[in-house]
């Protein structure tokens, strides 16, 4: 109603009143003109109150309109809800499909959000930086820590850092009332806790004065979880004394709940003593975290670090030579702490996962769009009637919108549940060493994400039925008659299915390549036998064991006693398991001409007992060093084939001389096969194995006090019997020696990053690919059977005119094969372009691997045929008479 109408109404009302008044006055005997005058006088300032009324009227209109609009929407929503309930099949399929797509995307987003997008759990975490020393000469990702000298120099000179704190994590033995065990410890400078803004839950933290070794009083702070677990959350432990590595230390505080090192969990925090007065050394073992000053950028700090590091040779002439700086391309780097914790590899993997689930969502959306198209098609007459009855385009759009929003919101709600379930399942198989993943669940942010996604999709889908709505009136006139549906109407559907197939091909190609990599990786011979072996770590901290011979005696007796257990085949000790961090030394061969300019490269070396190789299942050509060699009497060593090839190419290494540090030569008595200890996706390792006790004038390395012990069993190790038996032996031999990190070699191998990362990614992409495959097959099936249904009349006519059944089947097949064929083609091209992003995860297979790509293509083709089979059979059974009558 317009403003003019409002005015007219007011005027009418006014006029009626005026006339009634005049009539009454005249009825009382007043002459007409006087009555008019009197009445007008009585009415007062008409314009003022009319204006007042008009304003109120306009407000009434407005409220009414608003109410109408809401009612209108509610009515359409109600209508939409009823029409969804009337077709439970359609609704269920659409909601489930959307739930799969939205659920997958939400799960992916949750992981990305938690791991990559969110800040680390520290105050002002974006100002925290990680300092290290990249050595590109040793590999693109190789990086050392800081040297003590460098650390103090940076503390003194880098003005852009507010705080800088060093630390050194180490597994240590803790002896309390409950016996000795190994705990995850870290020695920290008080400055580190300041930089990370740590607070104690009880007591106090490590302070500057604590790191004075002369104080004669050692302190430690317990991690909150460790305190709960091992001390029952008893605050009374403050002030009590436990032994760390045999040294009495007082518990002075409990760390704030949930506070951990950025890249690992900590049971025990201890002071780190750094002696500045010692001569500087080129040893980079110190980890360090700094806090940028307010408003400072990383680049400014980097410039300062570069300037100071370039002066190292003049600052520390005994430790840093210009040649070293050049050879190792040595520098100091500052990175944001988050970059360090997450690492480029994980970040890339997660983005790949998010990309994959987005493709799944696209495929799901394509299915729903097709469903909606089909549905709109089947409702053409209903819509045409409604629009003929005066429903405007806007009203029909509102109806469609309400319907699609209901579908997407229901899909999102169900999707969130699916995502939560999927995340729980995935987290149980997350490999160790993927940071920040343990805490992932569908939280508030993810729900908001899913809600926004559902709104967006709802709005998009709401427009689907509108496409081509101009044809609607015509539909009414046509009476929807006609034997063939227009070709253009099917074209859109076919494009949707084709792109679906293409997306599925891309995803499956990615998953397939990872699967092949994983297989290849499985087939790599690591050089040792992971089956039927158990490994554990010892910590021999009594001063007695600082004598290498004493340590060797202990290990020898231990080996003999474990070997006496039933089912045990052999026992050996060494410094580290293959695929774990091992030490290195400048190993030289006897006939090797020393390169004057360069120090010999640091080659992996281990001190091992004779049984080590047999226990690991490493084949030896020649002999293993004898126990006589272990006693330091005879210098016998074993080298890997790769090291032998480098030191004495083409010659027999047996009997040749080799040395680590020190001047005396060992004789090579045995050669291993190719042994991969630095990752089974890496080249065979160059490594040398020396006896436990050094020979006279031999290397300076000391006693092996934290050995890893490997026990090979006859068959699958029965951990439940074996481990307690070993514990008993240890208790009898020396109760102060704790046993830790018990695991089977198989588990150890599966947990190493190259295997774990790939199997995790393979699972994720496999899941995404599986969903994609399923959804696109459902899509093909849906469209083909719809088209067959639409063409019943046409096909019936053809049969009536003498076409045979095979020709009809061919028509149907041609349709679906056309869609699948072009989809597979486009998908393969897309896969060629996209699988490159996986390159760093692939192993032994090219991103363009023809076997994988052709398998994926063939798989989709086969499944398309299967999906077409049912509707094709239906087409073949059409009864011409019935089909034509139905029209």
């Amino acid at each position: 109603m317009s403003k003019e109408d409002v005015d007219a109404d007011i005027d009418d009302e006014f006029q009626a009143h005026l006339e009634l008044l005049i009539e009454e006055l005249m009825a009382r005997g007043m002459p007409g003109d006087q009555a008019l005058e009197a009445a007008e006088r009585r009415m007062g300032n008409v314009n003022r109150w009319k204006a007042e009324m008009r304003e109120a009227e306009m407000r009434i209109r407005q409220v009414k309109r608003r109410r109408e609009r809401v009612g209108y929407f509610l009515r359409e929503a109600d209508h939409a809800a009823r029409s969804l309930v009337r077709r439970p099949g359609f609704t269920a399929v659409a909601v489930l499909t959307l739930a799969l797509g939205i659920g997958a995307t939400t799960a992916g987003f949750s992981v990305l959000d938690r791991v990559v997008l969110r800040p680390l759990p520290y105050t002002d975490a974006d100002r925290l930086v990680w300092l290290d020393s990249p050595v590109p000469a040793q590999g693109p990702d190789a990086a050392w820590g800081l040297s003590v000298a460098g650390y103090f120099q940076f503390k003194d000179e880098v003005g852009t850092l507010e705080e800088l704190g060093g630390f050194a994590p180490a597994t240590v033995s803790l002896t309390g009332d409950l016996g000795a065990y190994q705990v995850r410890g870290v020695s920290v400078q008080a400055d580190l806790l300041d930089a990370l803004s740590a607070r104690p839950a009880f007591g106090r933290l490590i302070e500057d004065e604590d790191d004075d070794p002369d104080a004669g009083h050692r302190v430690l702070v317990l991690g909150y979880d460790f305190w709960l677990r091992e001390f029952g959350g008893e605050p009374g432990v403050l002030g009590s004394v436990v032994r760390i590595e045999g040294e009495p230390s007082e518990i002075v505080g409990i760390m704030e709940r949930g506070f951990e090192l950025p890249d690992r969990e900590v049971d025990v925090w201890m002071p780190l003593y750094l002696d500045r007065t010692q001569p500087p050394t080129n040893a980079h073992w110190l980890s360090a975290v700094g806090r940028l000053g307010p408003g400072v950028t990383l680049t400014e700090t980097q410039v300062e670090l570069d300037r100071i590091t370039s002066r190292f040779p003049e600052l520390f002439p005994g430790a840093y030579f210009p040649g070293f700086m050049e050879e190792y391309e040595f520098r100091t780097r500052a990175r944001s702490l988050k970059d360090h914790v997450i690492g480029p590899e994980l970040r890339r993997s997660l983005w790949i996962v998010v990309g994959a689930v987005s493709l799944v969502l696209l495929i799901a959306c394509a299915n729903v769009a097709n469903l909606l198209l089909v549905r709109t098609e089947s409702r053409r007459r209903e819509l045409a009637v409604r629009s003929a009855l005066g429903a405007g385009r806007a009203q029909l759009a509102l109806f469609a919108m309400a319907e699609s929003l209901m579908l997407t919101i229901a899909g999102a709600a169900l999707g969130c549940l699916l995502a939560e379930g999927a995340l729980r399942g995935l987290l149980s198989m997350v490999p160790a060493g993927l940071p920040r993943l343990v805490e992932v669940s569908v939280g508030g942010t993810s729900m908001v994400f899913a809600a926004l996604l559902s709104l967006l999709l709802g709005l998009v889908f709401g427009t689907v039925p509108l496409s081509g709505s101009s044809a609607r009136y015509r539909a009414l006139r046509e009476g929807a008659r006609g034997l063939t549906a227009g070709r253009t109407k099917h074209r859109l559907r076919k494009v949707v299915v084709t792109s679906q197939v293409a997306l599925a091909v891309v995803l499956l190609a990615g998953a397939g390549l990872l699967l092949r990599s994983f297989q290849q990786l499985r087939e790599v011979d690591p050089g040792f036998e992971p089956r039927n072996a158990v490994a554990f770590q010892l910590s021999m901290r009594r001063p007695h064991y600082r004598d290498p011979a004493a340590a060797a005696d202990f290990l020898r007796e231990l080996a003999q006693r474990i070997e006496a257990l039933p089912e045990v085949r052999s026992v050996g000790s060494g410094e580290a398991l293959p695929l774990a961090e091992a030490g290195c030394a400048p190993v030289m061969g006897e006939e090797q001409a020393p390169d004057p300019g360069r120090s010999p490269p640091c080659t992996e070396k281990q001190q091992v007992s004779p049984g080590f190789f047999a226990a690991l299942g490493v084949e030896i050509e020649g002999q293993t060093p004898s126990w006589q060699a272990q006693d330091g009497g005879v210098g016998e060593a074993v080298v890997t084939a790769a090291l032998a090839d480098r030191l004495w190419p083409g010659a027999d290494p047996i009997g040749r001389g080799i040395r680590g540090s020190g001047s005396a030569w060992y004789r090579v008595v045995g050669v291993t096969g190719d042994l991969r200890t630095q990752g089974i996706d890496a080249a065979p390792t160059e490594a040398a194995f020396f006896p436990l006790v050094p020979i006279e004038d031999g290397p300076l390395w000391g006693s092996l006090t934290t050995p890893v012990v490997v026990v090979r069993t006859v068959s699958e190790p029965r951990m439940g019997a074996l481990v307690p038996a070993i514990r008993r032996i240890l208790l009898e031999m020396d109760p102060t020696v704790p046993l830790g990190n018990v695991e089977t070699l198989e588990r150890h191998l599966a947990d190493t990053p190259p295997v774990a990362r790939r199997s995790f990614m393979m699972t994720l992409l496999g899941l995404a690919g599986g969903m994609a495959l399923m959804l696109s097959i459902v899509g093909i099936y849906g469209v083909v059977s719809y088209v067959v249904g639409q063409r019943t009349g046409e096909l019936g006519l053809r049969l009536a005119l003498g076409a045979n059944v095979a020709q009809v089947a061919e028509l149907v097949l041609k349709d679906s094969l056309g869609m699948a064929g072009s989809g597979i083609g486009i998908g393969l091209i897309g896969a060629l372009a996209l699988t490159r992003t996986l390159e760093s995860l692939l192993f032994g297979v090219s991103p363009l691997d023809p076997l994988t790509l052709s398998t994926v293509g063939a798989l989709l083709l086969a499944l398309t045929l299967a999906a077409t089979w049912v509707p094709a059979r239906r087409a073949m059974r059409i009864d011409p008479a019935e089909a034509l009558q139905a029209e």
Partner: protein
Amino acid sequence: MRHISELPERVDLLQGTLDMLILKALNVGPMHGYGVARWLERVTDQTLRVEEGSLYPALTRMAERGWVDRVWGVSENNRRARFYSLTELGKRQLGRETAIWSVFSDAVARVLASDPG
């Protein structure tokens, strides 16, 4: 009987009081604006005169608040006129205002009847 034009100077009605009187008038039955004014004059024996300038804005306001419904009809003299009737909401409002009014007028009456000393 006094002539309309000879009525005493208009008595200013408090806003709420006018609303209450209109509601009371409509409680009798649906009527148009003129009818409301006439009814009030009749039952008060011409003592209360409602000014048109207050009556119509008040009716519109009450329509806005949902106290009255409005429909177009034909008046006694065959003119197009708007008829007002009470809604449920309006009836409840009338009850409320009547209750308040009786408390109020009681109090005023007691003040006026009180001993000056």
